[in-house]
Structure formats: C-alpha cells, structure tokens
C-alpha cells in the first residue's frame, strides 16, 4: 500500500492517454454489464408469481392448440394435486395493437385459490368483481398506464375470439385492482387484466368447451415431476396429448425457442474484449517502453525485480478495475432503461459480479507482458538505451 502514490503518479504520467484508455475500458464494461444482465434475464426466467409447487399443462404440440375442458376434472382426481384452474389466451389489446393487454379469462375461485400466496385483492374489490358479470380485475400499473379508474367501461380487442355477433371487441367494467404480494414480482403482472371465464366461454362464437392451458398446484413440491408424469399419462394416446411441466420450465421453453440469445451476446462481448485487450495492452506496452530509464533508476535505488513487476501489474490492475467499476456502475444505472425494452423479465443485478472478475483478468493479461519486460531490464542496458 505504501507504493500506491508511486503507482498513482505513474498512471497519470501521460494524462490524455490514461484518460482515453480509461474511458474506453469504461465503455466496454458498460456494454458488458448491460449485455450480461440481459443474458442473465434470458437464461434465468423468473418463475413469476409461481413457485416450485406450480405445474402447467398444455397441449403437447403447442400452447396455441386447445385442450378439452373435461381434462380439468380428470387432473383434479390425480393424487397430490391440490388445486386446478384453467385459462385461455385472449390475445388482447386496448385501442391499438401496440397496447398489449395480458387479458386472461379466469375461473375466480380456483384461480385465486391456486395463487392465494401470490396475489392480493381487497375483500371489497373482490366482492365487486364477483358480482359484476362483465367485471375486470386490473393490475394497478396497467390502470395507471391507460388512465383507467374503477367503474370505467373499457373495450378490449381480441385478435382471436369473436363474439356471437361477430365482433372482436369485448367490453368490460373495471371492478377493482389486484397486485402481487411480493413487490419484486410486480413487473410480471404489469399488463394483467383478469375477467370472468364464464362470460368468455358463453360469449365466444367458437371453441366453446375448450381451454388454452391448465395450471395445477401440488401439495408436495418434491412430488411435482411425478405428478406431471401422471397427468400426461392420463391423456397419452388421446387426440389431445398433454405436456405438463413446472411453470419455470414453461417460461424457459419459450425463451429457448427465441434462439440462442446467449450466443449472440457472448459473440459481441468476445469482439468487444478482444478489441479492448488490444487497445489497453498497447497503451501499457507503450507506457512501459517510454519509462525504461525510470525503471533503471528504480532498480538502481534498490527495487528488486519482483517489486518492479508488482508495480507495473498494480498499475495495470488499477487502470482496468477502476474503469471497470465505473462502467459497471453505469450499466447498473442503465438497468431500468433495459427493463423497459424487456417487459416482464427480471434483471438480476447479481449478473454484474462476473464483470469484476473479468476486469481483474483483463488487468493481468494486459499488465503481464510489459511487467515482465520491466522486470527483466538490466540496469546498465536500460540506462544506456533510452528507448
């Protein structure tokens, strides 16, 4: 530590050069932080309001294909299944197709029983929702986004479901709001709009008696995969085979299908760091080359080879790690911006930690060749040859 002022002074020997090098490392780590968080979000989809005790049963072939309603009763009789509820993709938007609304027809009793640990609704609002056949229970964030108030009549357009009169517009009366118990999960529900399944099933002009997918809660999470297998066995060789999986995997399966996002991100980062290595490495080499006589002086004063090596390494590490910390801090600040683009995905700040490891590695790789060079200098040669 007592050599810190010396390292500090040599680092700022050429101010412009150091500043530009620092800035390019900062920029690289800003990019690293952002891409790494996105990568993390893609590879660790949050289970959302659903834990290890939740299963999702869908049509084996695609979420877009329906299942018969009768499956619900059969699943209910599987031992270990505590609660079952059924849902259908509504494909809703408000006024314009860019205003996506995750409208979901729900069976109120089973849905809220299944998610009782995750959702909160006031008793009064729940009562109002139950009593209004055309009622909608809306997430507070969505209400705010469109400026809705309780009591408003709002039309939602479905891209799939026509009503009996041929219209694709469904009108709901907002009965109340609901939210997630755990605030960290709130963003999952940000566009949720729940309404009565009966209204939906009676109102739609086709597809009656079918459901989109079925959710289950099991008594014992450790039995979840056995139960999933038992459910799928019920419908094996039927026209509507099923695929039951933990809700986490259900989300993951979709993300996997988006393609190898991780590969793309890692390829970009590879290019960034190769470039950076070259740039910073060059700066360090140049700086050491210019200081050859100074190293000779240091050695004459009694600094050992190891000490000189240490000084150069310390300088390189200081440069890389300090700049990396600034870059990562900036990307940390940028997370809310990234989040706007990736709705419903949780970005973990923990994903930034590997950045510090990378910075140390970068510092070592960049610092080692010039440090070795400085270590191997012999005093006489170094003093004689200025370059």
């Amino acid at each position, binding site marked *: 530590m007592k050599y810190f002022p010396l390292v500090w002074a040599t680092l700022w020997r050429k101010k*412009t*050069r150091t500043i*530009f*090098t620092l*800035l*390019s490392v900062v*920029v*690289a780590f*800003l*990019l690293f932080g952002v*891409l790494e968080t996105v990568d993390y979000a893609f590879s660790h989809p949050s289970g959302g309001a659903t834990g290890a005790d939740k299963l999702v049963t869908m049509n*084996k*072939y*695609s*979420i*877009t*294909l329906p299942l018969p309603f009768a499956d619900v009763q059969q699943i209910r009789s599987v031992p270990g299944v505590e609660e079952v509820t059924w849902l259908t993709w509504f*494909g809703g938007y408000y006024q314009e*197709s860019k205003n996506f609304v995750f409208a979901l027809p729900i069976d109120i009793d089973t849905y809220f029983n299944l998610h009782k640990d995750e959702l909160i609704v006031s008793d009064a609002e729940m009562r109002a929702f139950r009593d209004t056949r055309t009622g909608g229970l809306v997430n507070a964030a969505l209400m705010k986004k469109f400026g809705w108030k309780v009591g408003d009549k709002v039309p939602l*357009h479905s*891209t*799939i479901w*026509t009503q009996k009169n*041929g219209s*694709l517009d469904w009108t709901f009366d907002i009965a109340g709001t609901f939210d997630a118990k755990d605030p960290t999960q709130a963003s999952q529900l940000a566009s949720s709009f729940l309404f009565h399944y009966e209204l939906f099933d009676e109102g739609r002009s*086709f597809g009656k008696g079918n459901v989109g997918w079925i959710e289950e809660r099991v008594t014992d999470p450790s039995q979840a995969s056995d139960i999933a297998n038992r459910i799928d066995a019920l419908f094996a*060789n039927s*026209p509507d*085979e099923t695929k039951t999986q933990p809700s986490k995997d259900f989300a993951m*399966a*979709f993300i*996997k*299908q*988006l*393609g*190898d996002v991780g590969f*793309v991100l890692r*390829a*970009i980062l590879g*290019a*960034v760091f*190769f*470039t*950076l290595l*070259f*740039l910073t490495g*060059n*700066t360090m*080499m*140049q700086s050491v080359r210019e200081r050859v006589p100074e190293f000779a002086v240091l050695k004459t004063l009694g600094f050992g080879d190891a000490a000189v090596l240490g000084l150069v390494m310390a300088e390189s590490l200081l440069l890389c790690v300090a700049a990396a910390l600034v870059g990562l801090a900036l990307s940390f600040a940028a997370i809310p911006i990234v989040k706007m*683009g990736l709705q419903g995905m949780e970005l973990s700040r923990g994903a930034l930690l590997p950045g510090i490891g990378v910075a140390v590695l970068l510092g070592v790789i960049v610092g080692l060749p010039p440090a070795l060079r400085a270590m191997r200098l012999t005093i006489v040669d170094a003093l004689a040859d200025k370059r």
Partner: protein
Amino acid sequence: MFKQFWAVSLMSLQTLPQRLGASSVIVVGIAGVVAVLVSVLAMGAGFRHTLADGGRADRAIVLRGGSDAELSSNLTRSDVDTIGNAPGIAKDAEGKALLSNELVTVVNIPKIDTGSDANVTLRGVGLRLTQVRPELTITAGRMFQPAVRELIAGVGATKQFRGLTPGSVLHFRNADWTVTGVFTSNGDIHESELLADVDTVGSATQRSGYSSAIALLTSAAAFTEFKDALTTDPQLKVDVQREPDYYAAQSKGLSKAINVVGNTVAVIMAIGAVFGALNSMYSAVAARGMEIATQRAIGFGALPVLLSVMLEAVTLSLLGGLIGAALAWMMFNGHSVSTLGGAFAQVVFKLTVTRTLIITGIVWACIIGVVGGLFPALRAARLSVAEALRAA
C-alpha cells in the same frame, strides 16, 4: 497547397510501419466495431428478407376479419368457396380458381443443435399449391400425395430440425407422417415450414375450417377489385392483404428490435473505438513531433499537416472497416439461424451481409476515423516549431 498535402501525407504514411503497434490499435478497434455492427444488422436483413421479400404483389392472403395472423384466423369451407369466385383471381386451363386454402398448425420437432423441442409450422395446403406458388421447387424426393400422411419439408427447416430427410418418418398426433421431399421457395418463410395436404392436416387436427386462403391474382392491379369484392360481401367478414404487406407487418417487430440492439451496441463500441483512435493518433503525432516541426520549419503550411494526420487516421479506419466487414461476411454470411416468429412457430433465416450493410459499416469506420483524427490533427497543426525542435 495540394502538392504540399501530398508530400506531407506521403511522408507520414511512409513512416506508418515504424508506428505499427499504435496504428494497429485503430485498425483492430474499428474492425471490431464494424464486424459487430454488420453481423447484427445482417441478422435483421436476413429476417426481413425471409419474411418481407417472400411474398408476391399479385398474390393475396385472406384472413378472418380482425385476425392479425394466420394462427388466430378461421375461415369456413363456404367462405373459401366464396373467395374462389371473387373477381380478379387467376384461373387455370380448366377454369378453376388458383386458390390455396390453408390450415396452419404447429408440431414439435427437436432442434439439431440443442435437441430441445421447437414449434415448427405444419401447413396444410390446397391442391393447386404449385400453381399458386410457382416459386416452390422440390429439390430432393417427391411431392406429397393428398389423403395420405405425407409431407414435404422446407430446406431451412431441414437444416435446423431433426429427421427431415426424405424417407424419414415423424410421429405426431398419434400418427406417422412420412417426409417425401425437400423444397425451396425463394428463401421465404415457407422454407421454415412443413407442407402437407390441407384435408389430411384438417382430419389429423380435428379442425373443419381453414386458417387462410392464398389467391393468385391475374395481375398486381387486380388486387383492389378482388379486395373490394370480398370486403363488401355481407356474407363474409374477412381481411384481404397483399402478401408482401402481410409479411412485412409480421416481421416489423423483430427486425426493428434487431436494428435497435445492433445500432445501440455499435454506438457504444464506436465511442470506445474513438477513444482508442484518439490515443493512437495523439501518440503518432507525438512520435512524429520532430518530423512535423521540421516540415513546418522548411515551409509546409499548417493545413497540409492537419490534413495529412486526418488522412492517416481515415486510411487506418478504412482499413479497419474493410477488415471488420470482411470478417462479418466470412463468418456469418449465409449462416442459418432460427427464432420464434409471430405465430409461435420457428422461422428459419439466414444472416445476409448485403452491400448496403458493408457500406454502412465503412461509413461508420470513416466517421470514427474523422472524429478520432481531428483533435490530434489540430494539435499537430498548432505545434510550436521552436519548442518541438528544442525538445528533440
């Protein structure tokens, strides 16, 4: 003035090899930026090519009114009959309308690289498929037969998903389907799909209706007549779109997202590269301080010196840009990837490094070079002759 500029520039370029280390920083830095920019944008270009360029202006797609994609659309048999009788539609020699009534569903096939199941579109197509879509060519095996469980696979799909070679058997929906052939289709989205007879697909999925009807029109101009006839028919409630418009709308979201990501990443990287270029050019000017001072002392003007430094920076950047674009082209042009398209099914597309993208990359390289060279060039031009000579 020009003579001076050339003389100074030539001298500075001749001394470049002596400053190889610092100069290569500019080249490598910019090559990195351009390679990333061009590769990511090539993804967007490939995706757009697959979707938007696939359709023909004289072909129309008819969906149920209000549905924005085939998957959520539903047409009845009588709807299809009405559509077939509409004016503007092309007819074959027997006077039958060139209309393909299609049914889109999804099957699961494992991906070759990860082995995990992916949703692949199985498209039931009408009997007049080859007349409605003349660009469709069987490259291996033979066409499927109607009424039996046979299908043909798009060439894109065969590269991404397992077991799609002619003769192999796929099992889904409690039945075995034989792959009889492989087809190409101008590189459009159908190359990501499996095609089979529409009624066979209908019976396998227990669906009686259709998703869409694809009509070949007598000419691109006949579209208005065709559309008006269908949309004013009180018996029908359909949306009629030109094929290119339909696919352009389907690809808008993703290709926009790819462009935003590509440009954002490249801008950030470019800022980093500018710092690198500044560093190198400042050190180049410093290393040549003596030389520049001498040139100034024997009568060369400040402007030629400034321009020569700029020229050096831009030359190096251009070299970096070319290397970066070449790298992107060599590594990724024609590289086949797949993603989840709008219809919850896989779209296979190839990264396409177009000429426009290469030019874009080189323009970026020049901008970085100009910005990175300007300040060092100003310093060189303002160099005090006496001080610089004394320092040596």
